[in-house]
C-alpha cells in the first residue's frame, strides 16, 4: 500500500465543552475517493474543519503528505495543497463569481487563467454568471461556485462537505459526475462527507461510518452499501 495522503491518528476535537470527535482514525490514499457518512450531528463537518486546524485537534495527530499539521495555523495548512468546500458553501456574497474564483487561487502562486478555463468547462453555468454577485446565485450555482473556488488552488486533496444538501436531484447528479470526472481524469483525491449515503457509497472507493463522533464501520463503498446495519441506519425509510 502506498503512503497515505492524509492520515488522522486518534484525533479528538470539538467546540467549547462539546466533544464532537472521539479518537477518530482514518486514512486517505492518493487518488482515492473516501466518504464519511453519518447522521446529522455525528461530527462529520467538525472532522473536515479539524483537518484544516479550525478547531484544532485536542488529541491525536493530523498528517498530510507525511507532515504533521496538527498545530499549524489554518491559512498555512490550506497552502499545502488542501482545499475545502465547507458546510453551507460560504460563497462570498458581495463578490462577483469571477472574484470568488480568483479568491481560490489567491495564495496559490500560479497563473489562474488555465484553471479558470477548466472550472468554466466543468460548470458552464458559472461562465454565464461571471459578473453576478455570489449572494444572488441559486443554491446549486453556489455549490458549483464553492467547488470551482476550491479547485482554483489546484489541490491534491479536496474536502467536500455535503455537496448534495438542498439541491435538486438533477444538479446533485451533475455535481457527483463532476467529482468522479476530476478523480478519474485529474487524479484528484477526495474526502467526501455526505448524508446521502446511497450516492456517496456508490461514488467512493472506501467509506467510514461516523456515529456520535466515533468511527463504527469502515470498508469499501460497495461492501458498506450491502451491510444490513448501514442499510437500516442510512438507507432506509429514515431519510
Amino acid at each position, binding site marked *: 500500500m502506498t503512503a497515505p495522503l492524509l492520515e488522522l491518528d486518534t484525533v479528538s476535537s470539538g467546540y467549547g465543552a462539546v466533544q464532537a470527535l472521539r479518537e477518530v482514525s482514518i486514512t486517505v490514499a492518493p487518488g482515492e475517493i473516501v466518504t464519511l457518512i453519518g447522521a446529522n450531528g455525528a461530527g462529520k463537518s467538525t472532522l473536515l474543519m479539524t483537518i484544516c486546524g479550525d478547531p484544532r485537534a485536542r488529541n491525536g495527530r493530523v498528517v498530510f503528505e507525511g507532515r504533521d499539521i496538527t498545530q499549524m495555523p489554518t491559512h498555512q495548512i490550506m497552502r499545502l495543497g488542501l482545499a475545502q468546500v465547507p458546510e453551507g458553501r460560504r460563497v462570498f456574497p458581495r463578490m462577483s463569481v469571477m472574484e470568488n474564483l*480568483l479568491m*481560490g487561487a489567491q495564495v496559490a502562486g500560479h497563473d489562474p487563467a488555465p484553471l479558470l478555463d477548466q472550472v468554466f468547462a466543468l460548470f458552464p453555468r458559472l461562465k454565464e454568471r461571471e459578473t453576478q454577485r455570489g449572494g444572488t446565485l441559486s443554491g446549486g450555482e453556489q455549490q458549483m461556485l464553492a467547488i470551482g473556488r476550491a479547485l482554483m488552488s489546484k489541490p491534491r486533496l479536496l474536502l467536500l462537505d455535503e455537496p448534495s444538501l438542498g439541491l435538486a436531484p438533477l444538479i446533485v447528479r451533475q455535481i457527483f459526475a463532476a467529482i468522479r470526472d476530476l478523480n478519474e481524469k485529474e487524479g484528484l483525491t477526495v474526502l467526501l462527507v455526505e448524508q446521502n449515503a446511497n450516492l456517496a457509497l456508490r461514488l467512493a472507493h472506501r467509506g467510514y461510518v461516523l456515529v456520535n463522533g466515533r468511527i463504527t464501520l469502515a470498508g469499501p463503498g460497495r461492501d458498506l452499501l450491502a451491510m444490513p446495519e448501514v442499510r437500516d441506519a442510512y438507507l432506509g425509510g429514515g431519510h
Partner: protein
Amino acid sequence: MAYALQQLINGISLGMIYGLIAVGYTMVYGIIGMINFAHGDIFMVGAFVALISVVMLVSGGIMDGPAAILIVLLVSMCVTALYGWTVERIAYRPLRGSFRLAPLISAIGMSIVLQNYVQVAQGARVKPIDAVLPGGITVIDSEAFIVQFSYMQMLIIAVTLGVLAIFTWLVTRTPLGRAMRACEQDRRMASLLGIDTDRTISLTFVIGASLAAVAGTLYLLRYGVIDFYIGFLAGVKAFTAAVLGGIGSLPGAVLGGLLIGLIETFWSAYFSVQYKDVAAFSILVLVLIFMPTGLLGRAEVEKV
C-alpha cells in the same frame, strides 16, 4: 449667492478631511465589526507628526514648495501607519475571540493613552505654525462679497481626491483589496482559502491610519493650530459621517464626510457658529432614527 458659493467651497474642503478619517472607521468596522474609538487620536498623531516634520524642514530652511508638502505628507503617513499597526497589535488582536465589548473598551483606553502620551511628549499648549501655502484665487469679486478659493483648499481637495482614487483602486482591483473584502464578508472562509487574516486586518489598520495621517496633515496645514485634544471632536464627527453614509460602506464614508462638512459650514454661516456641532450631531440622531443603515449602507439580512 456669492456668500453661499464661498460656504460651499469651505464646506467641501472641511468635509474631505472628515471623509478621510471616516474611511478608517468604516474599514475597521467592516472587517472586525468594532468601532475603533482611538482612530480620531490616530488622526491627531498624524497632525503632530506633520507638525514635527514641518518644524524640522523649516529649521533646515527647506520648507517651501510642493516637494516639501509631499515630504511632510509621506513622513506623516509612514509614521502614523506604524502607530495604527501597533494599536491593533497590542490593544485589539489579543482580545480577538473575546466578548464583543472587550475591544471597544480597549479602544477607548487606547484613545486616552494616545492623548496623554502626546500631551506629555509635546506639551498641552496649542501649537501654531506659519501658513505654508498662503493666498488663493478670487472667484467672484463683487461689491458685496469676495469669494476666495484658497490654494490650501485646492490642495486639500486635490490630495483627498488623489488619495481616495488610489485607495479605491487598491480595494477594488488588487489581490490585497480582494483579501480585505473576503475577510470582511466571511473571515473563517478567507482563512480556509489560505488568507492570513491577522495580517490582512493589520494592513487594514495601516491603510486606515495613513488616510487619517493625510487628514491630520491637511488639517494642520489648513488651520495652522493643533493640540493633543483635536482627535476627539474630529473623530466623533468622522464617526458620525461614517454612520450617516452607512457604516461599512466606503463611498458612504466619503459622502457622509462631505455632508457633515457642508452641514456644519452652512449652519455656522446662516445660523450660529456656537451650535454647529449640535447641528452635525442632530443629523446623526435623525439618521439613526429614520435610516438606521445610513445613506449607502446595506441591511444586515442576506440571502445565504
